[in-house]
């Protein structure tokens, strides 16, 4: 792929020579449990990165704390494994002061939605040029299995032996409510789909929020099994495609329609026809369409859309910040320290 595929990366220096997946591997032993979904995501990211065609040294991965947040150690780029929940804030400082970098945030459902929820939603509304990958395993992995803000109500965990009491967040609804300009979802087990979503996120200038369903085989195994099990996955998964009518099922036999009562309903295309099918438009300025889609699936994962829900252009925080600097220099001239220090009201003593 040539650089021109990513005009979003126009300010980032190009790679001097083509890279391979292995160029993005580090010499650090990967310390996840055998079988953890994080491995698949790591592999997908490492093999996707060369496609961007940018200098490896201009890529930075910033993470918080959690199993998922170990990610940067395994990427042969610059990286920071920071503290719990703060990666979006740290990355905001980095991205808005360095437009020549491609900055990625890796976070978990606990890191990003529990302790770090505020930084996440503020980064999204600001539209900072960050690609935020949230590995959602619906559990706290690193601290050995407490329920997370995405765990289903009533979940029995170490900290909730009688069942959890809090209704989970829907990460996509939350991101859309926070005015995110790019919102997508993918899944660890589907390398191809995941790569396509990473590609779309990278092509987006501004904040891109990507939820990745990730299996924690130790503390919450098979959380996303209905989307993986060949027996159910076709009926459970809705693959969103830009401009296409929303249909799913092994033979695309199900479709999405608007009900007379105003909401969305699933129907059989054979019965209801193709004309009334809802067409997916991620570029709609109004996030309501994407929001409706984010509500389709319930916690059991039936009718789970994956793909890009929303991708709209809005001025990017870092761009505006640097424009203000440029403009100030252009209109007022480069700052002169002596003039600044002197100010306007001085007196002289000889």
């Amino acid at each position, binding site marked *: 792929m040539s650089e021109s595929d990513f005009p979003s990366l126009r300010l980032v220096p190009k790679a001097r020579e083509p890279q391979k997946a292995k160029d993005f591997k580090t010499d650090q032993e990967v310390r996840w449990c055998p079988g953890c979904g994080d491995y698949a995501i790591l592999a997908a990211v490492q093999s996707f990165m060369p496609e961007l065609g940018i200098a490896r*040294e201009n890529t930075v991965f910033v993470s918080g704390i959690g199993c998922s947040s170990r990610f940067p150690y395994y990427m042969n780029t610059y990286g920071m494994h*920071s503290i719990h929940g703060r990666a979006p804030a740290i990355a905001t400082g980095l991205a808005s002061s360095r437009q020549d970098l491609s900055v990625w945030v890796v976070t978990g459902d606990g890191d990003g939605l529990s302790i770090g929820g505020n930084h996440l939603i503020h980064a999204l509304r600001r539209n900072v040029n960050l690609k935020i990958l949230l590995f959602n395993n619906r559990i706290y992995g690193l601290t050995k299995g407490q329920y997370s803000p995405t765990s289903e109500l009533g979940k029995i965990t170490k900290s909730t032996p009688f069942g959890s009491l809090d209704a989970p967040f829907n990460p996509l609804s939350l991101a859309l409510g926070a005015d995110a300009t790019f919102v997508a979802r993918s899944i660890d087990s589907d390398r191809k789909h995941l790569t396509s979503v990473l590609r779309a996120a990278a092509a987006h200038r501004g904040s891109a929020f990507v939820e990745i369903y990730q299996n924690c085989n130790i503390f919450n195994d098979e959380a996303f099994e209905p989307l993986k099990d060949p027996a159910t996955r076709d009926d459970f998964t809705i693959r969103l495609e830009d401009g296409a009518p929303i249909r799913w099922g092994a033979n695309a036999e199900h479709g999405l329609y608007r009900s007379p009562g105003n909401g969305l309903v699933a129907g059989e295309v054979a019965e209801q026809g193709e004309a009334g099918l809802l067409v997916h438009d991620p570029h709609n300025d109004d996030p309501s369409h994407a929001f409706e889609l984010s509500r389709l699936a319930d916690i059991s994962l039936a009718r789970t859309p994956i793909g890009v829900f929303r991708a709209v252009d809005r001025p990017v925080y870092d761009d505006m910040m640097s424009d203000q600097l440029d403009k100030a220099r252009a209109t007022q001239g480069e700052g002169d320290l002596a003039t600044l220090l002197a100010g306007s*009201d001085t007196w002289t003593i000889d």
Partner: protein
Amino acid sequence: MVAMSKDVRQLDRVIIRFAGDSGDGMQLTGDRFTTETASFGNDLSTLPDFPAEIRAPAGTLPGVSAFQLHFADHDIMTPGDRPDVLVAMNPAALKANLEDLPRGADLIVNTDEFSKRNLTKVGYEANPLDDGSLEAYNVHPIGLTSMTVEALKEFSITKKEAERAKNMFALGLLSWLYNRPTEGTLKFLEVKFAKNEQIMRANIAAFNAGWNFGETTEDFSVSYEIKPARLPSGTYRNISGNLALAYGLVAASKQTGLPLFLGSYPITPASDILHELSKHKRFGVRTFQAEDEIAAVGAALGAAYGGSLAVTSTSGPGLALKAETVGLGVSLELPLIVVDVQRAGPSTGMPTKTEQADLLQAMFGRNGEAPVPIVAPRSPADCFETALEAARIATTYRVPVILLSDGYLANGSEPWRIPAVEDLPDLTVEFTTEPNRPDGEFWPYLRDATTLARPWAVPGTAGLEHRIGGIEKADGTGNISYDAANHDLMVRTRQAKVDGIAATIPPTDVEDPDGLARVLVLGWGSTYGPIGAACRRVRREGLSVAQAHLRHLNPFPSDLGDVLRRYDRVLVPEMNLGQLAMLVRARFLVDAISYNRVRGMPFKAEELASVITGVIEEVNEQ
């Protein structure tokens, strides 16, 4: 307005306090008088004092806003203990400030506001202007409001608008009384009200009316002159601490060659640093108003990783919130300047009042052994130099530095001799751009032998890709390590790095003019003025006393222990319960006496002088 038809008497110094309702414009009045005074060439020192509410209810005690100014024909150190002149715009202002007024002082009172209702509001049963309770003072009862309204009756403005100009009347009167230059104020009013000519002309007229009133009234038989001060030669301006700090950071950016990045969340009394820096985009300054203090310091740390001169500014409660991230900075060993403009605590405390009670928070307020250097300015203008010093330490040692200013320094002001840019220290920073191992590898925790600083290799540098984090790292490689001996080494190394800064800081500057002192007064931060003024007083009484004031709180200057042990007694006055005293006692086992006042206000020189005298006498008796 220079003709003087009355006698002019010479004074060497005067302390004026303007006090009124929050809505009366006292801060503006004080600011203007200060500017006039500065441009006249006096030495000066100011103390604004206002409530935390935007506009507390009119006429109440909590609503009183005051501004004190001390100016002189010689160098002075404090805004003064007790005003020579108090301007009281209403009964609340009178009541709130009277106790500070020495007998015989001038008291200019706006009689128009002394209505029954206003008196009752603040608990005056009788009118103090009538009941003889002000006998001890030289009272000037003046209908400031009514005279202003009268003077402006020809303007097509509302009565309320006219009344609002009464502060300019008062300013005019005081300007006459102390023979201040007036052009600056006139020009200022022209600019400020450029959009509304009637209001502009009315304010100018009120100002002139005040001046003329002084000239005419029998009540004031003389006016005063205070000659310009004989300060070291140079070009001066008046500057507040927050402004000087902001300028210091811009200067540090230039001197280091690094773009400035400020991550901040508004909080009194630190917000003005954010406000000021947000103006200087032409200097390449990026300011980021974050969603909270944690994001503010986080963003700054991110910018530091990217190679900016990174700063975060806040006050005490915000510093508490930043603790965990500052700890990350200690572990990442990245340069970062954390400015804490201290205010009265604990918790929300008294946001507009000053205090020095965050020193131990700055020293110890993080989990684990997480040492950071700490510096503190001693006066408003000194904030400039202290900012440069913080930048020097942060960038040289790759460490978060805490700069402890306070509310008094932040808002107070004094003349500042503007430094020549050529004279500023060279702080040029070189990033690491090459591998640092013979085998061509790059180890992010391979240290400089002298400073123990690790390399600062910023993203974008090919071949030096590396990952850092808050987990303990192996010495050298920086890889995650849970090795017991390595951890012990790293903990000690981080401490040694900070301790090692002492080698680059000047020896303790002791002022002991006659060399005979047996008592040393040790201070830090904004108490420099009051302590210095108190020492002068004590010396004027013929006693000997030494003063040392610390800019570096961590590490201390290398000679501090020796200095302290040279004296029979060390007195440590602080606006806290004895925080520096605790540190020097622990470190040097010196029986330092702590003198504390936690009143949200600077020390009074008079009070300190008597404490110092007490200690000297005690020592002399021994």
